[in-house]
């Protein structure tokens, strides 16, 4: 018995030692040591911002921003819901219109009307009455096409959802699983927005007959199946149409060396679903004042101008100056499709289920 105890003591000492050691060499300790001078932003993995912009915030307000990321947009929000009441941070960024109702129904956010809200178009302000969330950016999920493929084939690329079911585009489209992937879900919602509650299933039947390929996620669809991407070219991909983002073409330009004069891919502008991304002050935030300042900052000029090239989304604030590459190669969605957030929350699971049994089998 005493042997075991001695072991335990030694091990505990070792474990503590390890922790202490790690803490010394470590990067960031979890303790809120700086009191209310730190404001914590919780977000998903895609969140990104230039360090200079955050520094500017600190200079302006005296608050230091600590960013916590966890999982994709859905997972990050669900974690927030689970920890409701004792949140890990002060501000949550990254709830979009497909998830908005779930967030609001769970009472995740406190009301706060951010300064500068009037510069944001009213149709983006989905919680206008209570201001629990503030729209920060928008992004469009659209079908992308491989320009070279259509030029070689002397075929006009598709423009609308209706085009996609035409025989000319048979076996060309690859889409993501709506159950796992947010572009996949966005595209499903686009068809629901276009053809209505009872019409979308028929449309998907036609898509299926026209040889749509469903793969698990965006990475496989875009990097492995889509002939217009760098990975696709290496993998000898054979699908020139893919569900991606309106911002994908400028990204292709930006991340190419040497930089091409024209984007290798284009956007079927009539196939887009609009995502609106919101931020909100968490209920139970330890540093509410800092959180409010941060929300103001998120729709301020500096952050808004930083958005396009960090997260490849459109600033929510009207007339924000866009970076040149983004303005030049980005294509504007025509009348992007939307679905009421409440309706999405109510039907999402059922739609995905129906969609799955329709398409995957």
């Amino acid at each position: 018995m005493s042997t075991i105890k001695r072991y335990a003591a030694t091990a505990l000492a070792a474990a503590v030692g390890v922790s202490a050691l790690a803490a010394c060499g470590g990067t960031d300790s979890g303790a809120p040591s700086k009191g209310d001078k730190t404001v914590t932003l919780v977000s998903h993995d895609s969140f990104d911002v230039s360090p200079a912009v955050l520094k500017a915030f600190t200079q302006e307000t005296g608050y230091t921003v600590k960013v916590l990321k966890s999982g994709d947009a859905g997972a990050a929000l669900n974690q927030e819901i689970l920890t409701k009441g004792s949140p890990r941070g002060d501000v949550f960024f990254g709830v979009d219109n497909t998830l908005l109702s779930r967030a609001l129904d769970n009472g995740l956010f406190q009301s706060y009307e951010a300064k500068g809200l009037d510069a944001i178009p009213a149709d983006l302000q989905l919680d206008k009455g209570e201001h629990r969330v503030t729209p920060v950016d928008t992004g469009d999920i659209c079908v992308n096409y491989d320009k070279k493929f259509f030029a070689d084939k002397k075929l006009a690329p598709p423009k609308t959802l209706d085009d996609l079911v035409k025989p000319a585009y048979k076996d060309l489209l690859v889409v993501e699983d709506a159950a796992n992937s947010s572009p996949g879900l966005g595209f499903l919602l686009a068809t629901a927005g276009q053809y209505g509650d009872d019409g979308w299933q028929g449309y998907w039947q036609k898509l299926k007959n026209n040889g749509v390929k469903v793969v698990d996620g965006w990475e496989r669809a875009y990097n492995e199946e889509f002939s217009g991407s760098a990975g696709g070219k290496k993998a000898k991909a054979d699908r020139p149409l893919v569900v991606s983002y309106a911002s994908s073409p400028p990204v292709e330009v930006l991340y190419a060396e040497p930089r091409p004069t024209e984007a290798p891919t284009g956007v079927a502008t009539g196939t887009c679903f609009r995502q609106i991304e919101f931020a909100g002050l968490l209920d139970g935030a330890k540093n509410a004042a800092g959180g409010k300042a941060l929300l103001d900052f998120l729709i301020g000029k500096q952050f808004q101008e930083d958005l396009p090239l960090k997260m490849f989304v459109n600033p929510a604030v009207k007339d924000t100056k866009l970076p040149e590459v983004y303005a030049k190669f980005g294509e504007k969605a025509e009348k992007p499709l939307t679905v009421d957030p409440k309706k999405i929350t109510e039907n999402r699971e059922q739609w995905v289920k129906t969609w799955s049994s329709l398409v995957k089998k």
Partner: protein
Amino acid sequence: MAVPLAFFGLFFAYPVIAIVGRGLKSGGTWQFGRIGEVLGDPDIGGVLWFTTWQAAASTALTLLLALPAAYVFARFDFPGKQLLRAVVTVPFVLPTVVVGSAFLAVLGRGGLLAELWGLRLDTSVWAILLAHVFFNYAVVVRTVGGLWSQLDPRQEEAARVLGAGRFAAWRKVTLPALAPAVAAAALMVFLFTFTSFGVVQILGGPSFSTLEVEIYRQTAQFLDLPTAAVLTLVQFAAVGTILAVHAWTVRRRESALRLVDPARTARRPRGAGQWALLGGVLVTVLVLILLPLAVLVERSFQGPDGYGFRYYRALQSADGGGGTFLVPPLEAVWNSLQYAVVATLIALVVGGLAAAALTRRAGRLVRGFDALLMLPLGVSAVTVGFGFLITLNQPPFDLRTSWILVPLAQALVGVPFVVRTMLPVLRAVDGRLREAAAVLGASPLRAWREVDLPMVRRALLVAAGFAFAVSLGEFGATVFIARPDNPTLPVAVARLLGRAGDLNYGQAMALSTILMVVCAVSLLVLERIRPDRSVSGEF
């Protein structure tokens, strides 16, 4: 015993029970009705069946292909052996997204098989099975091979002198001695493939789904905790059954074996048969493991206008054309190494203590604990991650936003490896050697250090290698745990792959190559660590 128990209680049992409880409890009462409801769903039945049989098939295939390799690594000396042993472990650390694309390149359209025989396996179940072999090859080679290399070949020779044929001698002498290690390796492979997530998704396409995928979907996407809880229980039940079967098959405890210095058991192959065996194993490794890895490496060098270092150069500039990183990729390497070292230390301390305790006391309770240690392999990362969120929120354990949570979660997966690889060897150590040390004045801890440690050093290094590799490549828990922005290599790769653009894709490949190299080098270094060689120099 107390430390491992506390560790598992606090960082595994409590969070998992809490999250399951949250799902099944509504308004203070248990809602067991949900169980019947979910289980009645025919889709779930299908998922459960697929999950189970693909895991069984993957395990069988892995054993079939990897056992000869375990033998070859244990008994033969050939140039580049250490390097190769490190290389076969590399798949273990690669993010599934990356492995997926490598496998597609070999098995899919335009891949090697397609070009040679017009064969495409990319959406067939074969792709999944082969990828599982790819991932788990090292598990068998290392755990079984580690023990095998320490078995005294003279025992087999003795059996042969007594008239047993070569195979009969192996079957009667070596196999029984190896059985616990083989069973342990099979169990781990099974658990890994049973809870396979990324591989099934990427290679199988949406028509294949495992329990793990469903749990992820219900928890992370729909926040349907009741369904997730039921599925978690189903997974628990399945994993529990497997563990029980395993315990039943190796009820015969590891007996005391004559262990010898591995350096003495290996020699150069002799005769056509042995060379053929070595050749066969090398070809398998080449096709199954090196080829996919080579594709990744090739892609990391292949730009739109020929081969070169452009993607590696791009990695150096943190803000290469807009910048995907808040931190430069080299810092990701550093982050990964730090996490991996801490996770490995935790896993070694906890796992080593558990293994030592299990060696000394073999009551029924202890055996139960033995099985419990394996459970983390059979539980979804998302379940544990979300469980952390709702449990570790009270001081002194408000660790929700602390970086230590990442290595802790990683260690959870590392501990079973440590226990599994060390236990057979520890049990094989003759207890009277410890007594001899004690009589000579060594305290129990000292006796462990002086007697057990030198004998299990090899197993310990194997275990450490695994824990390290697991942690280096760990992705699931890392993304589900909120952390300040210091991405690990796999996270950085995933982020790069999540964006369009030639440079991003190329950098992802380059970073994957770096990850491979880091892994291989770390393992090589680890194998080289031989403190106080044969200890004789100590006095």
